[in-house]
C-alpha cells in the first residue's frame, strides 16, 4: 500500500467495555487522509471513548483498530498523530510554563540525548503565534483561563506538526473568540491537507470545515456521511445542548439526517 493513500484510522468491529459496561458495541470507522470528521452524539454515547480507542488510549475488548495500518501497540510513527484532550492536565502543582507545555508536543519528534533543536524552537514559536499566546509563553499554564488553556492544548498539538489531529471537544466551554481562532487555525490545517477527527457538541464556526459527520448513539454509529445541512434550528447538530427537553434533544439532530439518508 502506498504511504499517501494509507488510512489514518481503520476500526473494525471495535468494542470497548469499561467496568463490565459496554461502551462501544461494534464500531466500523475508517478515516481517510484529508478528511475532516466530526464525531457527534449525546453525552455518554461513547464518542470520547471512540477517539480514545482510535488512538489506543483505551484498549479494545474486541475487534481491532489500526493507526496508519498498524495496531496502536506496534505503531511507531507517533509524530504523525496530534492529540488534543478535553482539558489540560496540570499535574500535582509544580508550575509549568506555556512554552514548556507546548514544547512537550515535540516529544515524539525528539530523540533522547539530543538537545532541543532549532526546528523544535521554531515549531513551538509558530504554534504559540498561531494561537495568539506568544506573549504568555513564560507564564505558568495554571494562571491561564479555561479558553487560554484550550489554546495551549491546541498549540501543543500544532508544535508536533502531525498529519492527523484528534481533538476531544475543542470547542466545549470556550469563548466565541477562541472558537473563531480554532476555526481559523483548523482552516489552515485543512488547506494543508491535514486529517482532522474531532468530537463536538456544537460545531459553531467549525461547521463549514467539516467534510463528514459521524453520529454515535449507545456505542454504535447511527449516522455516517456528509455533514447535515442545517434545516431550521432543530436540525443543527449543536441543537441538543440548548434544547430544554433532553429526551427529544438526543433524537433531535438524527431525525433530519435519517430523513436525508
Amino acid at each position: 500500500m502506498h504511504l499517501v493513500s494509507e488510512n489514518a484510522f481503520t476500526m473494525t468491529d471495535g468494542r470497548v467495555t469499561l467496568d463490565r459496561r459496554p461502551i462501544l458495541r461494534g464500531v466500523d470507522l475508517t478515516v481517510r487522509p484529508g478528511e475532516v470528521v466530526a464525531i457527534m452524539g449525546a453525552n455518554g454515547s461513547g464518542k470520547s471513548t471512540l477517539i480514545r480507542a482510535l488512538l489506543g488510549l483505551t484498549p479494545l475488548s474486541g475487534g481491532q483498530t489500526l493507526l496508519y495500518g498498524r495496531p496502536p501497540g506496534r505503531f511507531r510513527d507517533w509524530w504523525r498523530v496530534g492529540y488534543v484532550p478535553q482539558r489540560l492536565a496540570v499535574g500535582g502543582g509544580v508550575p509549568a510554563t506555556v512554552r514548556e507545555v507546548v514544547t512537550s508536543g515535540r516529544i515524539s519528534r525528539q530523540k533522547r540525548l539530543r538537545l532541543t533543536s532549532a526546528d523544535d524552537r521554531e515549531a513551538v514559536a509558530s504554534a504559540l503565534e498561531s494561537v495568539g499566546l506568544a506573549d504568555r509563553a513564560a507564564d505558568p499554564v495554571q494562571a491561564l483561563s479555561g479558553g487560554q488553556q484550550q489554546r495551549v492544548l491546541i498549540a501543543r498539538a500544532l508544535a508536533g506538526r502531525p498529519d492527523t489531529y484528534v481533538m476531544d471537544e475543542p470547542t466545549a466551554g470556550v469563548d466565541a473568540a477562541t472558537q473563531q481562532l480554532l476555526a481559523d487555525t483548523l482552516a489552515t490545517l485543512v488547506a494543508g491537507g491535514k486529517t482532522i477527527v474531532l468530537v463536538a457538541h456544537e460545531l459553531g464556526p467549525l461547521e463549514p470545515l467539516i467534510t463528514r459527520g459521524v453520529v454515535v448513539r449507545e456505542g454504535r454509529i447511527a449516522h455516517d456521511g456528509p455533514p447535515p445541512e442545517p434545516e431550521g434550528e432543530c436540525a443543527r447538530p449543536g441543537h441538543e445542548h440548548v434544547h430544554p427537553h433532553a429526551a427529544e434533544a438526543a433524537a433531535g439532530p438524527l431525525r433530519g439526517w435519517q430523513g436525508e439518508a
Partner: protein
Amino acid sequence: MIDLLGREFFQLALIAALLVGLCAPAVGTFIVQRRLALLGDGIGHVALTGVALGFLTGTAPVLTAVAVAIAGAVAIEVVRARGRTSGDVALALLFYGGIAGGVMLMGIAPGGSNAKLNSYLFGAIASVSRLDIWVIGGLAVAVLLVVGIFGRELFVLCQDEEMARASGLPVRFLSLLIAVTAALTVVIAMRVVGLLLVSALMVIPVATSQQLTRGFRSTMLLAMLFGVIAAVGGLLVSAQSAKVAPGAAIVLLALLGFVLALGVGKFVRRGRSSQESTVSERRSVSVKEVA
C-alpha cells in the same frame, strides 16, 4: 567549626549532605508533579527491611537497602498502575510490612540493636564511611543521569500520562524508571536524614521552590539549590551542639525555608497577577477588534 572541617568524618558528612541535597529535590520535582509526594515515605519504610537484611546476612546495609527499596518501588508502581480503589490500602500494607519486617529482622540480627535501628530511622550522618560515600556518590550520579537523559520524557509523563501515551512514549518503562530512581534517592538520603524523614528532602524543597517560580525546569533547579542549602546548613547547625540531631536540623531548616517562601511567594504573586490582568485585558480588547 574550622577544627571540624579538618576532620575526615565531617568532610564525608558534608559530601553526603551535598549529594543528597542535589538529588532528592531533583527526583522530588517529578514525584510531586506525579501526585506521588508520599512515594518516598513508602519506599523508606520498605527500605528499613532491606537495612535489617543487611545486618542479618552480614552484607553492607546500604546495598541490601538498595535491592529491597527497588523491589518495593517496583511493587508500589505495579499496584499504582493496576489498582483503582484498593491501591492505597495495598500501599499501606506494604509500608507497615516494611517497618515491622525491619524492626523484627533487626532484633534477630547478630549485630542489631536499637541504636543501630535508630541511626537508620533518623539518620547518622556523622558515621558515614568512605565506602558509604562511594555508594552514595555512585547512586547520585545515576540519579542525576536519569534526570538528565530522561527528563524531557519524565516531564511529559508526570504532567499528563495520557499525553505521554498518545505521544508513543514508553509509559511503563518511564513509570518504573521514576520509581526506581526514587528508591535510589531514598537510599542515598537514608544515612543523612534517616528513612522516616527521607521524603522531606524530596518534597519540601520542591514545595518551597514552586512558591517562587513559574516553570518546571526553574522549579527543579531552585529546589536543588534549596535542598543543598538545607542539607549543608542543617549539618553545620548540628555541628554546633552534639544535642542537635543533623537529620532533624536539616528538615526543620527546609521547613523554615518553606514558610519564608510562602510569605515571599504571596508577595511575588500579588505583583504578578496585577501585571497579568492588565495583559489579559489588553489581549481581550485586541481579540475583540479582530472579531
